């Protein structure tokens, strides 16, 4: 699809912002005290990206995804990934059926044929099954028995994985990790939030979530996000940031074995555009890039053994990159420093 570069008008921007706000407010009633997480998830979805949520069990990851599907009035399926799960169990299988008096194989669509696929504990499935998602996530289509089947539009994979009990799991390969727009770490709740959960929720009862917009309105929102302008200086900043993730290209990249791919740059731009729209702007900014850099880049940076032994994490590398790479192309001379702005 060609890039639509027409400038957003004020009305479109205001509409998009209002829809964002409505969606965020609704999801706030599903997951308490996790506004930054909710914002990232919504931004990732509006940027047409797949999201990997990583966190301990019981933090509301699945609940958030289900709430999102209901709020957007989209078709959502959930697949619990297990080691014995086969690719056909997700994509679908050809089934021998009698059609017009003759026996023939008819493709039986799997759970992937939905707008939102909730891949719960994705790292528990075998690599063969995980790889079945590759084509679907990147090209939004499924090939089975020589036939290609397009997935519904929009299509998102919202996967979760558990960072503990890793015995018998299959860590996602780099190629598959790269297909996720965001990898978001879900943190535990504070006592105040827990108290609120205890008072407002009950085990076994899902929160009531009403749809805030229809599928067409959501598709319109996706279209608006694609039309957000990325200024040349911001595009240059994204490029320099991604380039600096590679070994030898920056001081922050010391200990990095492999840096981020060009897909990471595209992901940064798309997420920045969505965030710009969420803040009522027809353009992306440096602040947008910096806000989404960590969930976009951290899982795309591969550290070497030395850095891992030193306890360095990819998130720390990204933080250092943000400090090192300046928004302007030319660094400030040593005889000048940024003044504190009151």
């Amino acid at each position, binding site marked *: 699809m060609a890039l639509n570069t027409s*400038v957003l008008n004020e009305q479109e921007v205001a509409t998009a912002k209002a829809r964002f706000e409505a969606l965020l407010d609704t999801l706030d009633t599903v997951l308490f005290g996790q506004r930054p997480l909710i914002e990232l998830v919504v931004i990732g979805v509006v940027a047409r990206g797949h999201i990997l949520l990583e966190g301990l069990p019981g933090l509301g990851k699945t609940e958030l995804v289900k709430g999102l599907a209901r709020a957007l009035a989209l078709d959502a399926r959930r697949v619990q990934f297990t080691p014995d799960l086969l690719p056909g169990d997700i994509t679908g299988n050809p089934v021998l059926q009698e059609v017009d008096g003759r026996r023939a194989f008819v493709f039986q669509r799997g759970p992937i044929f939905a707008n939102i696929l909730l891949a719960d504990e994705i790292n528990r499935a075998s690599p063969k099954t995980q790889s079945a998602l590759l084509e679907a996530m990147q090209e939004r289509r499924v090939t089975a028995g020589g036939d290609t089947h397009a997935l519904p539009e929009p299509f998102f994979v919202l996967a979760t994985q558990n960072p503990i009990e890793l015995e018998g799991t299959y860590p996602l390969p780099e190629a598959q990790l790269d297909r996720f727009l965001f990898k978001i770490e879900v943190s535990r709740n504070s006592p105040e939030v827990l108290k609120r959960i205890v008072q407002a929720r009950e085990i076994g009862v899902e929160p009531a979530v009403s749809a805030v917009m229809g599928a067409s309105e959501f598709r319109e929102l996706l279209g608006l996000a694609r039309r957000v*302008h990325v*200024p*040349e*200086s*911001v595009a240059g*900043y994204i490029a320099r940031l991604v380039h600096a993730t590679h070994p030898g290209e920056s001081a922050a990249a010391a200990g990095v074995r492999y840096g981020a791919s060009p897909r990471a740059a595209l992901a940064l731009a798309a997420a920045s555009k969505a965030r*710009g729209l969420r*803040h009522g*702007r*027809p*353009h*992306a*900014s*440096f*602040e*947008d890039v910096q806000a989404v850099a960590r969930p976009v880049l951290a899982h795309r940076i591969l550290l070497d053994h030395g850095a891992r032994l030193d306890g360095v994490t990819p998130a720390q590398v990204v933080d250092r990159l943000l400090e090192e790479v300046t*928004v*302007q*192309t*030319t*660094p*400030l*001379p*040593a*005889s*000048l*420093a*940024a*003044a504190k*702005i*009151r």
Partner: protein
Amino acid sequence: MRSAPAKLHWEAAIRSLRLRVNLALWLEHAAPLFFAVGSLAGFSLYAMRRASPETGWIWWATAVTAGALAAAGLAIWRARRGFFTLVDARTWLEHRLGLDSALSAATAGVAPWPSPQTLPKTLRWKIGPACGWLAGALVLALAGALLPLPQRVQSDYERADAKAPALAETEAWLEALAQREIARPEDVENFAEQARGLGERTPEERYSHSALEAADTLRAQTAQAIRSLGANLENAAAALSPLERPAGELGEEELGAVAARLGEALRGLQEGPLAAREDLLEKLGAAANAAGLRSLSPEQARQLRQQLAQAGRAATGVVGAEGQGASVATADPDARLRVGACPGGGACVGTRPDGQPCEAGCVASGGVSRGPGHAPLAFRDEASDAGRGVTETVSADDLSRAALGELLGVERGEHELDAKQSDGPMAAGAITSAGQGGDVVWVDRLTPQERAALKEFFK
């Protein structure tokens, strides 16, 4: 889109920011270069002051200015890659002000220009190191200009440039003579030109033997000419004395004698190396015959005599110790008698009062009064330097000409005593001094062979 003033406001802010950043970067690169230029300027200035305080200032200033301009240009060339562009400045400004890339979006025509606002300070100067370089350059340049020169250097220069004393004295005489308007200006100028010719020689040639001889001779000739002028003027004045008596008392014969004596003085005044001034000669010429003398009244004769006598005294006073010329003449009261008393300008020791040449008492020309002055006399290991850059020592190669008791100089000083030297009583076999360093080793210790010999001896 917002109005043009908003655009102008932000564009001006962006340009201002870019200018400030680029200026800071340029200063960073230029400061060490300016320090180098300042150092060179300071050192060269000091060297110039030592070498020649009067010349080369324009060249120095031109070179320093060119050096500073070259340093500024080199700094621009070196800093050019780090200069902020307008995009950089805009990016920095919008990021620091939290404008969410509104300026970039407005430049691209995507969003309106933000409202003009009072801009806070986004940059802070850290120019300590650059100021240090510049202050260092300034201090070195000022040091080169203000640091006092060593006294010895000035003395050398002055001494090297000084004229020979005889020449300076001659010029002073001629200047005084010209001021008193006694002699014909052309004749005075003739002598002055000869003096200038000697004075224009280089310092190296000025003190050569021939130049010193020439200066001494010119001095003697000038003194002789001035003295001759004064004597003739006084002779003329003395010749006019009889005319002051009443007209009837002077006979024809006496008048003729006066005219003859006056004529002789007039010839001397006209034909000498220094002739008297024209108006004086005219007056004397008119009166130097019987008719002219008769026409003079006693009062006119008295006035003319006084005028001539005064001129004669003034001329003599130029080279003498007495009168108004004493300040410019030599301070030696006998100089008038000695100068020119011997052939070749030599001095006459023990002169006769009449000032006639004293062949027996003549000594050769030369002496300490000719050169730039006395070399500092000191009985030290180091040779003395009279200021010509050549060390001089007092020596007597031909001892046959050295007389006992000849006094070369006197200096107050102290003996260099060795305080460590023992001066106690000495007895045979006793060690009066522990010695220094390894001395004690060979004093106290004996070799095994020596010890064996001693044992054998005292057994």
